[in-house]
């Protein structure tokens, strides 16, 4: 039986411009240092958040990043959920494989982001948008 997860702090950031991506990076970084994550964990999570935030800004029309501080059975975590109302991803599996290998400057970086974090989840529907959730536990 899974232990209950409680949320002790939340914040939602708007994602529209380049600067918003930087803002997300800074906010995730500062939350994580509050929770005393190791430097490597912070770097990985912030990098993943940066990838996903950029996707939202580039892809979608408008989006948001929702941060949640989690506590579950004595361990601390951080979850960030990226929502966009863009066109959605037709083939999620393929998108997970695409990356810098495609050569174009705007590879999706989803596969890479997944490798950096503890938990990764993605929902997408054509015409509706995309939601990606990443979680890092201490």
């Amino acid at each position, binding site marked *: 039986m899974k232990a209950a997860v409680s949320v002790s702090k939340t914040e939602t950031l708007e994602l529209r411009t380049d600067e918003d991506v930087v803002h997300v990076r800074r906010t995730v970084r500062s939350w994580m240092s509050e929770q005393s994550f190791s430097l490597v964990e912070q770097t990985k999570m912030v*990098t993943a958040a940066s990838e996903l935030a950029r996707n939202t800004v580039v892809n979608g029309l408008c989006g948001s990043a929702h941060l949640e501080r989690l506590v579950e059975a004595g361990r601390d975590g951080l979850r960030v959920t990226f929502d966009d109302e863009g066109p959605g991803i037709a083939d999620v599996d393929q998108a997970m494989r695409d990356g810098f290998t495609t050569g174009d400057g705007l590879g999706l970086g989803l596969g890479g982001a997944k*490798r950096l974090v503890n938990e990764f989840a993605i929902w997408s529907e054509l015409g509706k948008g995309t939601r990606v959730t990443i979680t890092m536990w201490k």
Partner: protein
Amino acid sequence: MDQIPILKAGEFLLVSIQVDMHDRLAMRLQDDLTAQVVRTRAKGVLIDISALEIVDSFIGRILGNMASMTRVLGAEAVVVGMRPAVAITIVELGLSLTNIHTALNVDKGMELLRILVSPAVDEGRRERIED
């Protein structure tokens, strides 16, 4: 819009990235640098990223581009000061940056540049570095 300063030091150009760059700033830097390499006929470029806490796939590609473009223009490029956490993350991301020269810090980077741009005199050392 702000700009990342590019300094001239003899026949080399020095770029020290001190801020958390947003994408447009990074792209602007890429343009500026290539323009400057041509304008100053620089033999080498040193890119100092010791203050960069995050290098994601986009920034990583920009760095790679700057090095490649510099080489295409006949100059050498060395990226210095990558932080351990950043290096670990880039490797985990699978970002391919294997074609760039790297050095621990500005001093070692300048030393490397001098070797890379110097004529056959130090060919032995150059060979060791290249292989």
